[in-house]
Structure formats: C-alpha cells, structure tokens
C-alpha cells in the first residue's frame, strides 16, 4: 500500500503547487500581476478558443510534418550508419553540427531561402533528426549478440539481420527518441514562424499578442504550445512503454563516439576525420548552388572567410563578433554550470525524498516541453530583462536533461554497494557522500555534453528577445540590416563554439578520469 500512499502524497503536492500559483496570481504577488491566476488564464483561453484554433492547426501541421520527415530521414540514416559504419564516420561532422546548431541561427537563412511552409517543416525536421537518429542507432547496435551470431550462422546477410533483428530491437529506442523529438518539432515550427510573415501559427499569434499588454493571453499561448509539445511527448512515452517491459518514460540518449576498429591504420583514421570535417562545408556549398539565391543572401564558406577574415568588412565584423562573444560565452558556461548544479541537487533530493522530486517532475517537464520562444516572454514578465532572465532561461532548458541522466546514473549503482554501508549503520547522507556522489562524476560529464548546446540556444534566445546583448542580438540586428555575411558568420561561429565546448567537456572528463577519487567505482 506504500505505493498508493506515495502517489497520493505526490498528487497532493502537485495540487498544492498549482493552488499556490492560483493564490499568487489572485493576490498579484509576482511582478505586479504579470503572473495571472491559472483560472484566469484558462477562462480566457476557453473564451478565445475560436481565435486560437487556426493558429494551433497551422503550428500542429508544420510541426507534425517536420516530425514525420525528420524521423524518416533519421531512421534511414541510422540504418545506413549501422549497415556501413564508414558512413557514420563520414557523417560525424554533419551529425555533430545537427546536434549543436542553435536553430535561431539557421532560421533566418531557412526562412529566406525556402517558402514559408517549407522553412517551418525543414527547421522542425532538422531539430527532430538528431535525437531520433542517435536513439535508433543505439537500439540497432544493442541487439543481442547471441541472436546476431545465430542469424549469421544460418547464413543471414546484414540486410536480413537489419530487418529481422536490429530494427525490431531498435523500436523502443526510437520511441524514446520521439519523446525528445516531439517537443523539438514544435519549437522548430514556432521558431520558423517568427520571421516568415505567416498569417497563422502560434508564433505569429504570440507576436501579435505581445503588443497588447495582457499577460493572461501570453500565458495562454505559452501553455497551448506546451500542451501540444507535451502531448507529443506523452504519446511517444506511452508507445515506448507499451513496447518494452521496463518503462522508459524518460530516456535521454547520448551519442558516444563508437570505438574505431582497432585494425584501422592511423592514416585511414585521419582520412575519415578529414572527410567528416569537410563534408558539412561541401554540402553547404552544394545547397547554396542548388537554391539559386542572390549573392547578397547566400554566403559560401569562402564568402564567410572573406567577410570575417580577409575582406574589407573584416575589421568591423571581427570587432562586433568578439564583443558579442565576450558577452555570450561567460553566461553560457555559468548558466550551464548552475543548471548542472540544480540538476545534481535535485537528483540527490530524489535519493533522500522521492516524493518531492515526483511532485516537481511535472513542472520540470513543462519547462522541458515549453517551446523556448514561448517561455522567454513569460520569463521576461516575471524576471525583467537583466542577467537574471538569461540565467533563468538557460537553467530551465539545461537542468532537465541533466537531471534525467544523473538519476539514470544513480539507478545503475548496484544495490549491494548501499547494503554494504547500511550494514555498518551509515545514514542517508553518508551513503550519498560515500557512494552516490563519487559515482555520479562520470554522469555529470554526459549531462554536461547534453546541456551545452541547449545552454547556448537558451542564452541566444534570451539575448534576442530580452536583453539585447551578445550573439543573439547581433544575429537579430544583422537581419534588420540585411547583413547576411554576419548572419552566416554567427551561425558558423555558434556551431564551432558548441563543438569546442563539447570537446572541452570531453577533455575535462578524460583528465579527471585519470585521477580516480577515493571510493569511486569501489564496487567494481
């Protein structure tokens, strides 16, 4: 009966928090009424539903088309990468770029190069690709080696293996990839509505409503967008749960580079690396050639080099870019560290008092599924336009994925380790100190790698919509001046920055792993 009592307590806490929101809204506690009561938001939402529906339909349409296209490409790519591992190595540059690219940096170019609907669907699909591809690949590669040997022994080809074993094995993984992909599709669709001049869509509606000074409308739109993203998440979670015995309600996969075949020569590895780095640039050049854009808009790789390094624009461009980077980089790293700290604290809390964590989870899930662009105006209402709002947004987008990874990490600690110290009468705090905290170190880095691109995106969106500083603002201003050289530069620099930070996290992990702390992995 403990389970039932636990659930009642969780439900009670959730209701309590919702009630607190209602009271805070009614009494105008937060920033002079910018946090309206829940009841007010919902009454308004229901009474205006006729106005909402065409916008909701438009966003649903582009988000779901993007979801479908992105997933088809992702699964096909995963099949190729699994069948021919060389392709995975060649496409590693593309994959990392797809993972690290801040969508607001590519949105302006997509919106101008493609027509409204296509731009929205493409951006949604781009954000969907990586989570599904990695999940599917991990699923295919984790097929039971015994079964693989069996099929091989009976003369099964790689294709047979794929059809009868790997794809089937990957299904639950793909479903869990969908959980990350579904909210991402909604974010992509809304981001590309900004700037496209579309008549319909929640992003358009949000922009039109910003000028009305009515927080309840803004909250209504934000919560509607969240509901759509949350619905996609929930559907994928249910499908995933039905396909596996264990409930993978929350599962975040991280692509760890597969170990290169030991037989490969140095030369062969260097060639693959060079190809992986060159391929994104080649595709960039080909796409521009294909799209037939005006040279004012389309900047080739060499065009960007000219703009930033060798041309007559170089001095001014470098000055503006470095000033922006100096504002963006520190807050990105700081926000990510605080986000990781919050995740770590919550994960520890889940150890000591699981009920509190379970009550907080639904709210955490909301910040995870709420499209960033809808979250930002609300955060501005409550927190103003200073450093705080940037930090709040960055933390809220980074901590959840990190939290999930850490909790999964804790769950992998063998029970025997705890039983052992329990026998010696250790308190919960002792258990944390002795076992959980040292064991979490490796997971912290996995979490950090996941969080980094999100942190950069969070900071750039906050800068763009709220504070008017750094890369986000530079991007926005360059659009206004049709300075496409700078737009491409910011897009490329933000991808390179993400990759650099990503590699730094890997380096830090490698450095720390050489000096194991006392007590870590003591059960191995």
């Amino acid at each position: 009966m403990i389970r039932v009592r636990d659930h009642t307590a969780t439900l009670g806490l959730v209701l309590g928090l919702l009630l607190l929101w209602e009271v805070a809204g009614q009494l105008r506690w937060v920033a002079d009424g910018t946090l309206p009561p829940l009841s007010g938001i919902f009454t308004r939402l229901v009474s205006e539903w006729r106005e909402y529906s065409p916008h909701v339909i438009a966003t649903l349409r582009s988000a779901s088309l993007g979801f479908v296209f992105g997933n088809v490409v992702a699964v096909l790519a995963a099949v190729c990468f699994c069948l021919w591992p060389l392709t995975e190595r060649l496409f590693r540059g593309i994959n990392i770029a797809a993972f690290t690219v801040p969508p607001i940096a590519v949105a302006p170019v997509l919106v101008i190069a493609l027509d409204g609907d296509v731009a929205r669907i493409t951006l949604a699909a781009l954000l969907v690709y990586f989570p599904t591809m990695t999940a599917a690949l991990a699923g295919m590669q984790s097929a039971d080696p015994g079964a693989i040997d069996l099929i091989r022994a009976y003369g099964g080809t790689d294709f047979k293996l794929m059809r009868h074993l790997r794809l089937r094995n990957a299904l639950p993984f793909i479903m869990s990839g969908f959980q990350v992909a579904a909210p991402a599709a909604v974010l992509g669709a809304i981001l590309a509505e900004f700037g496209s001049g579309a008549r319909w869509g929640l992003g358009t509606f949000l922009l039109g409503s910003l000028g009305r000074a009515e927080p309840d409308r803004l909250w209504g739109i934000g919560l509607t967008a969240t509901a759509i993203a949350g619905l996609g998440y929930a559907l994928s979670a249910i499908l995933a749960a039905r396909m596996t015995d264990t409930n993978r309600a929350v599962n975040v996969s991280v692509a760890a580079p597969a170990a290169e075949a030991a037989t490969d020569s140095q030369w062969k590895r260097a060639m693959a690396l060079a190809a992986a780095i060159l391929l994104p640039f080649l595709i960039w050049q080909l796409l521009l050639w294909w799209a037939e854009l005006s040279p004012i808009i389309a900047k080739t790789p060499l065009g960007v080099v000219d703009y930033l390094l060798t041309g007559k624009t170089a001095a001014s461009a470098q000055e503006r870019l470095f000033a922006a980077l100096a504002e963006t980089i520190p807050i990105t790293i700081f926000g990510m560290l605080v986000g990781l700290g919050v995740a770590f604290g919550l994960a520890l809390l889940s150890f000591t008092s699981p009920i509190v964590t379970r009550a907080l989870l639904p709210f955490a899930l909301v910040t995870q599924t709420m499209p960033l662009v809808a979250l930002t105006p609300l955060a501005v209402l409550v927190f103003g336009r200073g450093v705080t709002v940037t930090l709040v947004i960055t933390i809220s987008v980074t901590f959840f994925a990190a939290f999930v990874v850490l909790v999964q990490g804790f769950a992998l600690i063998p029970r025997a380790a705890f039983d052992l110290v329990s026998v010696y009468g250790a308190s919960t705090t002792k258990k944390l100190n002795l076992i959980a905290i040292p064991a979490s170190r490796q997971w912290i880095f996995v979490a950090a790698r996941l969080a980094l691109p999100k942190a950069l995106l969070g900071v750039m969106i906050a800068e763009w919509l709220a504070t008017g500083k750094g890369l986000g603002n530079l991007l926005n201003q360059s659009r206004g001046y049709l300075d496409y050289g700078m737009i491409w530069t910011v897009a490329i620099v933000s991808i390179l920055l993400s990759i650099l930070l990503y590699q730094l996290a890997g380096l830090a992990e490698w450095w720390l792993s050489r000096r194991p702390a006392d007590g870590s992995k003591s059960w191995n």
Partner: protein
Amino acid sequence: MPFMTNRRRFIQLLGASAAVTGLPGRAFAANSLTMQAAWINDAEFAGYFVAIDAGFYQAEGLNLNYLSGGPDVIPESSIIAGKADLALTSPDTTIKIIAEQGAPFKIIGAQYQKNPVGIVSLARAPINSPEELKGKTLAVPPVNVISVQAMLAINGINKSDVNIIPYAYDPTPLIKGEIDASLDFVTNVPYTIEQAGEEAASFLLYDFGYKTYNDAVVVSEEVLKGKRGELVAWLKASRKGWHTNFADTAVYPPKFKNTWFSGTGRTIENEIYFNGAQRPLMEHSDGVFAMDEEGINANLESLARIGIKGSRDIFDTTLLEEVEA
C-alpha cells in the same frame, strides 16, 4: 540529374499550399504582382485591403498577391529572395543596403510622408524631447536602432547616454515602469497604453530632425524595367484605396474584422484609432505616395548624419508622374 531541373517543383510539392504564392517564377508572371507588407495585418495597410476588396487592382488589370509582414520579416529580404516584386520598407535600412552592398533597389513612392515612429513614454513621467532621454532606458526594435542613433546624433546626444534595450512590441514594461520609453508607431501604442489605464506622451523622430519617409515603396531594378506598367497600376489602385479609406477612418476597420484583421490578436477599436492617427502623416497635396524634392533631400540629409550615403537616383519619381497623368 533530372531533379536538378525540377528543384523548384520539388519545393512546391513539399510546401503544398503556401509554396505556390511566393516563387520567383510566379512573381514574374504577366499582370500579376506580389507585394510584401512591412507588418502584420493592421490599419497601417488598410488602404491596400480596401483596394483589394473593392477590386481596384483588378480594374487596373492587376492580379495582386499580398504577403503580410511581421516583427521579424525584413521586407527587403523578400525582394532579394525573389518572393515579392514590391516591398514596403523603412528607407534607412533600404538605403543602407543600397549604399553598402550595392543592392539594385529603387524607391518609387512613399506611404508615410512623416515617419510615424516616435518615442512613447507615460504622461506621468513624460519624455518630450531627445534631450530628456539622457540616462533613460529606451526599448527599440533592433531593426530601428540606427534610426534612433541618427536622431540622437542630429540632436547632439551621445548614443552611450541612452540605455537601448531590444523592444518586443510589448508595452507592458513601459506601463509597469520597467523601462522609461519605447520606440514605436505613435499611431498605435498610445491606444494600448490608454486601454491599460495610463496616458501616453510621445514625440515623432521626424519632428526632431530625423525627417524620413516610412513604408517606402521599394522595387528591384529588374522589376522596375520588366513590370513598369504593373507598378504604375499598383500605385494608381493603391492610392485610390487609401483615399477611399480616408473618406471616413472609422468605416473600414470594422469591415475587416473577420477577414484581414482576424487572428491578429488586436482589437478593431485599436485599428480605428490607428487609422485616424495615421491620416495626417500620409496626406500630401499631390496624393498618397508623393515624393517631392524637399522630402527626398530631407531623407538623404537625415541618413547622411549616420554615415549612410544615399543619392537622389535611388528615388524614381517618374512612375508617380505617370499615375498623375
């Protein structure tokens, strides 16, 4: 490679509905013209909606395609990308891109003789001149930052004396006192502020030396050459639409409630206020869109103050002459 030749078709197939309207191939079809507006559908474009609904464009033999704008739509981009033949733009960005990047644009008319952008503050803490902006926090849409810097320079104020933050077209921070002023259309925001129970104070950048047009009618040189007849027809029909709309500024906005203005998140009362407030900024003795030498010089001189070096030949007044003839 067959897909290469069909790539536009491929995009069309992907984009199903919306793709059809905006492709360069379409934009250059005979007797059709695609215009890119500068903002979401509001009273700023009432004249065009009147002209479309009343069939003024059709009467001129023109099939007009209307693309809405928005806070993040840069109208000139639509021309460069071949999505539109004609765009309503802010002349400062247009002339900047012509001067600095050699964009092949011409301005063939001006909707607003006086740019409606101004500094809006609350009447209980009014800011009535550029001088009073010193030490204040001013919210400005990133696209308009150069306009504000020009106005400050013209009035001898150092731009570092004013704290400029990005403006998201939301007057809430102003009403809550979080910021001191914002840059917006004075034809529009004061109404929203009144609705929130406050009173607004404002001044036009135009009245403090930044004498620019707004919603300049911009086309590429290619379109100017290839579709001159259509452009003249557009000017003629649009002018008729505006004059019809201004006969009584309260008549048309309610008629667009369920068509042009539906789903914008704004009220019809707001549009009526806007429509009335914009009339004096658009009227000219030679008719809507007129560009006289004095006005053109004022534009060029204002922009020269922030280092944007335009020239008289950016403005092509010969189409307006054909309209009048």
